[in-house]
């Protein structure tokens, strides 16, 4: 098998009214290596989820290419896309709304198997019981005939994970998989995702906003702001020497439960501007504490500033070490 690689370059616009275009995601480019976890981070509205959904082909990109396992997903016909979909699955943020309340666990977890005509009847049921055990739920014939409301949030998320695993995928997009869960349950689900990755050689695209969670899970990190990539680096490199002022601000905003740790905070002023009419020049310039004239007029290129470390900032080298 060839290395699982995705090349991604997208320019996207949703028509809102006659002329307004939401610049949800623009010219995003990255590669995900097989068996690695790649994380997209950024504030609400930065385009993380839109990017994830485009990769899954749940929404149609305006421009660009998405390569998966040597195939361009945007040129596949329906039948080919259906086959490729077996290898790609998604885990959603909210286990309360992503599971149909009128379906039993057997129906929820078994539905991908039926939709792809892989298993049905008793065989399907056997597979569902096996999957439910894999994700750490207490097995039992009775359990799979229960409805989502009979489970706690953590258990529901495990059901969502079981559904994603049903077709033995290679690649999983996990969109904020633990954002709506309790602290103790959150740790269980994160550990489960890590274990499953090892066990089934999975590749993850993790969409998250909590940088502590991201650090625990990821090999690569990509920071997005208003639909643009700001920084992309290997996890260790990113946490030890972030280059973009936005990344530094996000990192400095992490609170530690240890009251003795005092840290300098870079405060960002204001809120994210509207993506319908994004700021010219660098999209971050309206909130950047180090803004200069050039930032207002010229869009910074996304350059490889250091080996395998990309950044979109005119002054990354000048700012290095100054704060």
């Amino acid at each position: 098998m060839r290395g699982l690689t995705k090349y991604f370059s997208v320019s996207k616009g949703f028509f809102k009214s006659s002329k307004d275009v939401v610049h949800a995601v623009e010219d995003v480019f990255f590669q995900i290596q097989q068996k690695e976890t790649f994380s997209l981070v950024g504030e609400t509205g930065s385009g993380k989820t839109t990017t994830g959904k485009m990769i899954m082909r749940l929404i149609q990109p305006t421009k660009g290419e998405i390569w998966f396992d040597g195939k361009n997903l945007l040129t596949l016909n329906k039948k080919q896309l259906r086959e490729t979909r077996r290898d790609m699955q998604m885990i959603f943020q909210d286990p309360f709304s992503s599971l149909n309340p009128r379906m039993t666990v057997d129906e929820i977890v078994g539905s991908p198997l039926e939709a792809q005509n892989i298993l049905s009847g008793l065989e399907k049921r056997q597979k569902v019981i096996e999957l439910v055990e894999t994700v750490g739920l207490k097995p039992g014939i009775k359990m799979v005939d229960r409805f989502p409301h009979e489970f706690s949030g953590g258990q529901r998320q495990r059901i969502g994970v079981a559904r994603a695993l049903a077709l033995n995928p290679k690649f999983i997009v996990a969109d904020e998989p633990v954002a709506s869960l309790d602290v103790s349950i959150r740790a269980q689900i994160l550990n489960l995702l890590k274990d499953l990755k090892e066990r089934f050689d999975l590749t993850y695209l993790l969409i998250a906003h909590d940088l502590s969670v991201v650090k625990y899970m990821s090999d690569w990190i990509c920071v997005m702001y208003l639909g643009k990539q700001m920084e992309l680096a290997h996890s260790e490199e990113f946490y030890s020497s972030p280059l973009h002022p936005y990344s530094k601000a996000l990192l400095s905003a992490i609170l530690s439960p240890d009251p003795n740790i005092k840290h300098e905070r870079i405060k960002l002023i204001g809120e994210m501007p509207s993506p319908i009419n994004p700021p010219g020049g660098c999209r971050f310039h309206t909130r950047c504490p180090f803004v200069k004239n050039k930032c207002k007029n010229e869009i910074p290129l996304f350059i490889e500033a250091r080996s395998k470390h990309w950044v979109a900032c005119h002054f990354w080298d000048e700012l290095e070490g100054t704060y």
Partner: protein
Amino acid sequence: MEMGDTKTILKASKHPYTFGLLKSLPRIEEKIQSLYSIPGDVPDMLEPPSGCPFHPRCAYAIINCQDKVPALEEYEKGHLVACVRANEF
């Protein structure tokens, strides 16, 4: 389960539930291979566990824990803990 001023609870917690929660937070300061997690789920309140409500999930539970509900007792001034083994932590 436990009550006290912020610093005491975060730095010198005496209840396995409290320090279990604190340990299960991923921290930005360190890179760890596996995250601690409190086993099991929140119990069903239609059939709450006997004795200490946390005992089915507690790594430090002893026989006594399933018989008697521990009282919220003052461990130090202003620091209340409901655990029979609080002195050992």
